[in-house]
């Protein structure tokens, strides 16, 4: 065995030289977009017209990030804290009426914690604090 050690010193050199002329394995993000797979678990989406106010999403959320508020008869809004959300998607699984969905949007960084709170109002569109990618 000891003799075999010295058969190929620098056994990796061929690969090292080959790689010198290949394009980089990394992506120049954020200068170039980095799309996520279709079913990537990013920011939540809420469809108020489907919500029946069963509050199962609130009950199952591991981090208490969701709050469903009743605005009127069969009208609900969702208040989500993206800073607390762990993007597990359990609320989407728990929802009986498919009022929640997950989007591949992962670029959610903010300078202020307040901006991480997103309210999806009863009209069906998120208010001004929502950040579209």
């Amino acid at each position, binding site marked *: 065995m000891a003799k*075999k*050690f*010295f*058969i*190929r*010193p*620098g*056994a*990796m050199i061929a*690969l*090292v030289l080959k790689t010198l002329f290949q394009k980089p*394995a990394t992506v120049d993000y954020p200068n170039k977009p980095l799309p*996520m*797979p279709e*079913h*990537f*678990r990013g920011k939540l989406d809420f469809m108020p017209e489907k919500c029946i106010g069963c509050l199962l999403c609130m*009950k*199952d*959320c*591991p*981090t*208490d990030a969701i709050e469903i508020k009743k605005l009127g008869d069969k009208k609900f809004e969702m208040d989500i804290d993206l800073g607390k959300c*762990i*993007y*597990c*998607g*359990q609320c989407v*699984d*728990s929802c009986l009426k498919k009022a929640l969905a*997950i989007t591949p949007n992962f670029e959610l960084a903010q300078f202020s914690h307040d901006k991480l709170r997103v309210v999806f109002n009863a009209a069906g569109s998120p208010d001004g604090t929502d950040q579209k990618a």
Partner: protein
Amino acid sequence: MDFDKTNDKDMQISIGPQHPALKEPTSFSLALRGEKIEAIQVKIGYNHRGIEKGCESRTYIQDMYLLERICGICSHAHSTAYVQAVETIAGLQVPRRALYLRVLIGELERIHSHLLWLGVAGHEIGFDTLLMYTWRDREAIMDLLAELTGNRVNYGINTIGGVRRDLTKEEGERIVKIIDHLAEQTKYYIQLAQEEVTLIQRLSGVGKLPREDALRLGAVGPTARASSITFDVRKDDPYAAYGELDFKAVSADQADVYGRTIVRLGELMEAYSLIKQVVKNLPDGPIAVRAPRKIPAGEALSRYEAPRGEDVHYVKSNGTENPERVKVRAPTLANTQAIAKMLEDRYLADLPIVVAAIDPCFSCTDRAIEVEGRGLMSWEKLRRYSIDWYRAQGVDFRNVKRVI
């Protein structure tokens, strides 16, 4: 050791808890004679997160996500070990397709963990080229996991009673393509490990752990298997679909860091074969059964062969929506005991690679913290102590809104 302060060669040094060579907090107290390690004391417990206690105030579903976050690398290991225990108590018949998919994700996780380890080991011995190549290859697996499960880490694929996402035929084909490519790469790394003179010379004979010592100190996983102990939970106590699949528990007899490298490389090849078998033989049918929210009273112990070794979860239920007790034994706790033995009569420069060779995950390990000289404390007393301790540091919890 007879420590002699008047002798210039005798030194006592502390490494950690924060140290650039180790990315997690742990502390080593070393007694040195010259560069030789005479005695070593390992102290863990810097990253206690109260996860087990936290589980008691959350529901079974919420606990799944909490326990998954014990470790960022073997997250599937912890969530599977936990759901297996809960399913046993509830008497759920998990569909075969779900069991196969758990194996698939578990093996993909093992590949990314072992490739990561190979890179870290290369880095610790100054072979950064290996780090760059293995981490580049590992990225293919990370992307694949993101596509299959929805995230690169903390996959969230498990649910009580099955899995949450199905596998399409196209995804299966893609997996096989990527696995074939990685198998080629790994063959090259195996050849490298057998021929590259610097790698062999640096790792051979370092961190010796003879078979008897490995058994005595309770080493698990690749650390034990490199000391010719052919123990693998997947083989010896099959869970999920491992009983139906063909693979072998890789072991080596070198009993040193080189042996641990060989074992991990061998396990990579076995994982590729397992994944191909799963994709080929994936049974049809549902991927989950409905699980009750309230789990009947009972207790169960679940074992899982995580990339680092045997992971043990114990769950006790009392008929409510929350478990009464959850106990986790992460593999690193079992392997930590062996570090002192491995470093006997070695040099200080061997410390990083020997510690790295057990593939430590100290944050996953900490299940208890010792407050020196205070004896046993009740929950209320402990809570009061922590509030007072933080207040002395200038953090007052009276004004903080209670968050779960």
